[in-house]
């Protein structure tokens, strides 16, 4: 215990005096939060809309107004031929075109079906899908209103009233920020610790430490300690910053959040130390660390791409990506305010992962020291 604390204290002093470690532990997380927090955003706003209105009636004006008032569209051009709006789309000046046929008002009043066309620029399929969703919802609402006006007897029998829980405005930021917190925590912990053991190998201090009567367990835990404290503090700071900057809510308990963070970071640090025992130089360690933390946490954790829509073999791989469990737990805590019973299996998985990684790192080192 005394020896472990001595290793921890020594490591902490080294970190405090090593510019590179400080960069990875403090600056990189803040930088990533701002960069990804502002840039990684699936919401589409201010869609430039052109209108080709051949009806020029009260009804057609109401329909255009419905689009503009939805808040997603901005009227950019009023055109009178298809050639005109084709040119606008081609030049990228508008993203969507609303084409209203002549006779809209007349047909609506007589209760006929009216086809209204929406042309969407599909060069970015993500954006196009979102735009289409917005357009459809505007049209459906408008259509329901007309039906109510025309039908003398009653309102339509079935109307859809959707309620989105936990994220009523469907802001993609709320969905992404927990993933981003996982991503940042993983990268800074894995990269910073991955350098720590290999640095001692390179500088020869490892040999001196090996000569001391010190168990590898004490050495590994002692090394983890300062990184753990620092990354936990950074992560809490990132959570607070996300609340201040991106309006991340906090509906659950801080104690549970800290618990989830602790388990997750312990696993990440274990992974970093493991890499450090394998690698023979700081460069190799850095590359391995980046490979092992960036990619899986970005691609296979449900951060960006939903795990449920991955092919089965890929889904199986995600089972060993700790961020997968952490993101579920984090979303449950901050967005849903869920109780421990809702995500204890995720926490258990994180605990198992952390124990496994730290044990493996310690074992590997013991074999090298023997």
């Amino acid at each position: 215990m005394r020896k472990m604390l001595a290793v921890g204290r020594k490591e902490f002093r080294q970190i405090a005096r090593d510019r590179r470690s400080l960069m990875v532990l403090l600056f990189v997380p803040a930088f990533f939060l701002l960069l990804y927090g502002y840039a990684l955003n699936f919401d589409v706003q201010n869609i430039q809309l052109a209108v080709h209105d051949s009806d020029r009636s009260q009804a057609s004006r109401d329909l255009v107004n419905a689009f503009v008032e939805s808040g997603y569209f901005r009227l950019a051009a009023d055109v009178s031929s298809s050639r005109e709006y084709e040119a606008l789309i081609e030049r990228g000046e508008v993203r969507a075109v609303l084409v209203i046929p002549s006779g809209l008002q007349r047909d609506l009043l007589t209760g006929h079906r009216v086809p209204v066309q929406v042309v969407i620029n599909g060069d970015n399929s993500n954006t196009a899908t979102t735009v289409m969703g917005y357009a459809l919802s505007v049209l459906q609402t408008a259509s329901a209103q007309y039906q109510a006006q025309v039908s003398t007897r009653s309102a339509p029998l079935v109307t859809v009233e959707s309620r989105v829980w936990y994220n009523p405005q469907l802001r993609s930021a709320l969905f992404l920020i927990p993933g981003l917190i996982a991503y940042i925590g993983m990268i800074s912990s894995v990269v910073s610790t991955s350098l720590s053991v290999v640095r001692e190998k390179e500088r020869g201090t490892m040999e001196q430490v090996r000569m001391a009567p010190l168990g590898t367990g004490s050495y590994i835990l002692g090394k983890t300690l300062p990184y753990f404290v620092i990354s936990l503090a950074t992560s809490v700071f990132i959570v607070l910053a996300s609340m201040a900057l991106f309006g991340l809510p906090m509906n659950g308990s801080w104690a549970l959040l800290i618990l989830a963070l602790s388990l997750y970071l312990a696993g990440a640090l274990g992974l970093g130390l493991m890499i450090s025992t394998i690698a023979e130089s700081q460069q190799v360690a850095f590359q391995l660390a980046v490979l092992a933390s960036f990619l899986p946490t970005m691609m296979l954790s449900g951060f960006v791409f939903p795990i449920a829509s991955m092919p089965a073999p890929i889904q199986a791989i995600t089972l060993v990506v700790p961020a997968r469990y952490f993101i579920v737990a984090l979303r449950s805590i901050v967005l849903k305010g869920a109780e421990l019973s809702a995500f204890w299996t995720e926490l258990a998985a994180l605990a198992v992962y952390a124990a496994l990684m730290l044990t493996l790192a310690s074992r590997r080192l013991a074999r090298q020291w023997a």
Partner: protein
Amino acid sequence: MAPAILVRDLTRRFGAFTAVDAISFAVEQGEIFGFLGANGAGKSTAIRMMCGLLKPTSGTAVVDGVDVSRDPEDVKRRIGYMSQKFSLYEALTVEQNIRFFGALYGLDDARIALRMKFVIEMAGLSGREKTRARDLAGGWRQRLALGCAILHEPRIVFLDEPTGGVDPVSRRQFWRLIEEMSRSGVTTLVTTHYLDEAEHCHRIAIINAGKLAAMGTSRQLKEIFARRPILEIHSTRPVDVMRALEQVPDIEKTTVFGTAVHAVLRTPDVDLAGLARDLNARGLDVSGIDRVMPSLEDVFLDVVEHA
């Protein structure tokens, strides 16, 4: 008194390469025992096996009465070890380094404080307690490293090329420390490829290609030249002198030794004046030709050549 270190047929192979080949020797308590050999001769591999850092392929090493392969952890507690790279933590100060290594060896705070005083005095580091290791000059770093290696007052100290890259004055100071330790009963096993340093050792083992090629005191080792005197010849044309001497049947071999030429004779009696005349007759401008005492360098080269 049981020997401090007892090594029997110690062998280490790395694949097909035999780094240490069945070496055996015993080191007495309080002795300064030198491992002399070229780079890659197997000195470090041997010392690492004796310290429990590396498992022997075969053979045994008993250090302070403990079989290293049986209980390497116990051996680690009993010995001090300092390697060629003076593995201190550069970002830590002198005091912090001492405290860290003291804690690793399980010393309590009071003992660390006591030993800190001793090490700082021994290494001449008073006034530099708060200096970071990276800002210390070579000699100080090396003495601090030695201090850190003996914080727990081991009876046996292993030093693996401790003086590499250190200036001659610091090297002499360092050896004075080792001699002091020896007087207080500490056994030292030191590897070096500096021949002048080997003269400080009570006994020397010459390691060549993993084998123990010769062992004994400096004087004993030099006896291989007892019946083969060494001549030192000074000339302005040493290379031509060597070429001429190779033709002389009584001369076994010649080597360049500084600016002079050393020639090993096959017989104890040789006509020096006659030889000088012969060489000068060939216009080789010999200014002096004397019998000299063999140096360890002569011994080392001779042993390596005959191995």
